[in-house]
């Protein structure tokens, strides 16, 4: 098991290297001149040359890549083209907002999908299952921003039940933090919960028909033991794949939700950076997102090895 983790980790390194090259190449792909972006259209040629020199634009591309990646390895993403503030500290400041949003959304979607998928799968064909399946289909179809708007109108505008905008840090007030997270996280997580519910339901149904479930019952095990031990460990294999796919989806969803609920997170930061062509910020966000995806896949792979001992071979 430890060997497997190490092997997968070392396999991820070349991948991260390639991702870093692609991210860096954004320099070449984004149209426009950063120096012009910074100094404005009226700047003199000398000013522009000085800025280019400072940004290292005159160096060969490989030198620039190694300088950049060298800094990145120390978590230094340079400074924003405009504010001169360190990108790393700006991200560090906004990380709790985005992380709170994504994690609460994930927790909400698991809290909904685990029981819903399990109950629907174990009672497939009943009215209850049909209702849940219809609900899940609707959940998948509702766009998060539309749901967010609707929830804001109902819970914040028409009634005074929950705040519709802003963020309160968890250190400051856990209760306020939770209240502020509830609407955005629910809007973000509902579609995921619907997808996960459907996935879990179908894998529960398939697993229930397996011979080893009949064996477990033939042994006289209690019903809950059959479900929570013998069924769940096997049925969660496809569900974990689905969960792994949901994490990048949730992260990209934060961009829209942060905008809608005025949350000053990484998503908002990225959007403004793209609009301003603030390259160091864009590179940092792209690279971080890629790392999150790689790490998620790694976690999915490793949980396969735990859930399905056969994959531990080779």
């Amino acid at each position, binding site marked *: 098991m430890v060997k497997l983790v190490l092997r997968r980790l070392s396999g991820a390194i070349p991948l991260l290297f390639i991702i870093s090259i692609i991210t860096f190449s954004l320099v070449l792909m984004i149209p426009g001149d950063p120096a012009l972006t910074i100094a404005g259209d009226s700047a003199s040629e000398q000013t522009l040359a000085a800025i280019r020199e400072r940004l290292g634009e005159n160096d060969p591309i490989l030198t620039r890549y190694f300088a950049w990646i060298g800094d990145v390895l120390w978590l230094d993403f340079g400074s924003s083209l405009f504010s001169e503030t360190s990108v790393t500290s700006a991200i560090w400041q906004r990380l709790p907002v985005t992380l709170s949003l994504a994690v609460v959304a994930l927790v909400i979607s698991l809290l909904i999908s685990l029981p819903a998928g399990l109950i629907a799968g174990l009672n497939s*064909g009943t009215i209850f299952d049909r209702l849940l399946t219809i609900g899940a289909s609707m959940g998948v179809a509702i766009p998060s921003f539309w749901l967010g708007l609707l929830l804001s109108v109902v819970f914040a505008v028409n009634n005074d039940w929950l705040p519709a905008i802003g963020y309160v840090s968890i250190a400051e007030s856990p209760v306020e933090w939770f209240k502020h997270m509830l609407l955005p996280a629910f809007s973000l997580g509902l579609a995921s919960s619907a997808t996960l519910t459907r996935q879990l339901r179908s894998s529960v149904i398939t697993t229930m028909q*397996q*011979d*080893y479930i*009949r*064996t*477990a*019952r*033939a*042994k*006289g*095990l*209690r*019903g809950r*033991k059959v479900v929570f*031990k*013998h069924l769940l*460990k*096997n049925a969660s294999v496809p569900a974990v794949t689905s969960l792994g796919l949901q994490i990048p989806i949730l992260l990209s969803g934060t961009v829209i939700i942060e905008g809608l609920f005025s949350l000053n997170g990484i998503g908002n930061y990225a959007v403004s950076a793209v609009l301003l062509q603030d390259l160091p910020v864009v590179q940092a966000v792209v690279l971080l997102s890629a790392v999150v995806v790689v790490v998620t896949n790694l976690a999915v792979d490793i949980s396969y090895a735990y*859930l*399905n*001992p*056969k994959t531990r071979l080779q």
Partner: protein
Amino acid sequence: MTMSEPRTGSPADTSAPPLLEVDGLMVDFNTDQGWANIVDNATFRLDRGTTLGLVGESGSGKSVTSLAVMGLLPKSVGRVRSGSIRLDGTELTGLSERRMEDIRGDTMAMIFQEPATSLNPAFTVGDQIAEMVRRHRGVNRRLAWDRAIEVLGEVGIPNARSRAKAYPHEFSGGMRQRVMIAMAISCEPRLLIADEPTTALDVTIQAQVLALLDRLVRDHDMAMLLITHDLGVIAQVSDEALVMYAGQIVERALVSELYQLPRHPYSEGLLVSMPQIAPRTSARLASIPGSPPMPWQQPSGCRFHPRCPYALERCRHDEAILVQLSETRSSRCLRVDELDLGRGGNE
């Protein structure tokens, strides 16, 4: 453990209450064609320490009969319509699921046809045996694990102590079936149901597994309901045989009697199609022409009449009932007294 004497072909004292008593069992299934009767009025008894073979072609209702006894009919698809199943004096039909869970694995245990899929791939074999021991014996993990190693050794798994930590996919088919058997006997059940325990195995392994079952049943004084489509298997280990066709028991006999003189044309057909010398998996020398009916289109009269070489006009109309011929024999044939059956014209 003392070895019981070799099988003489006589069942245990019939005055003692039997271990398993099935009476008028009717099982229905919800098929593609609606509700259909799968097991029709099955009545039989199994005495302590004896082995009863249940034989018939595929689809005759053998597995469904055994699953009904175990209370493992697939929910919402299969149901016991009527009849009684008594195990050790306890009526099982209508028992709550919780009570059935207490009995399953403890008083009765079951081995299935496919060892490859019957063990959970996600847990070690030792764990899968030990959890059952803990469930019924209420012992701690250590003792349960020791018991798992003990039974794995008993069924002939080499290096049981280390193999207990292996996963099912790390065993061969024959060894997996041994693991299933070890699991089944781990709580010393009184009744062992083996549903085609050797069908999925290589020919050479089949004989070993049968011999193992035979030995265990004697050593532990268990009763066994051995289900197979192969009369050769019954000949090796059973005292008594039930022949099943299209959901009905068509003949009941001591194995020795059945071999000497079948009293039902279907039994005769099975005997004739049984390879005498060639390995059991080789092509059938001869087989009964035609195929069994679908449960939703059972023929009128005697259900075997479309395939029976002795069928007369009345076999199409008159219902054949199971008639007791002697203390040990019954036959469901309208012409049982007229026919001179043997091993298919060999005599």
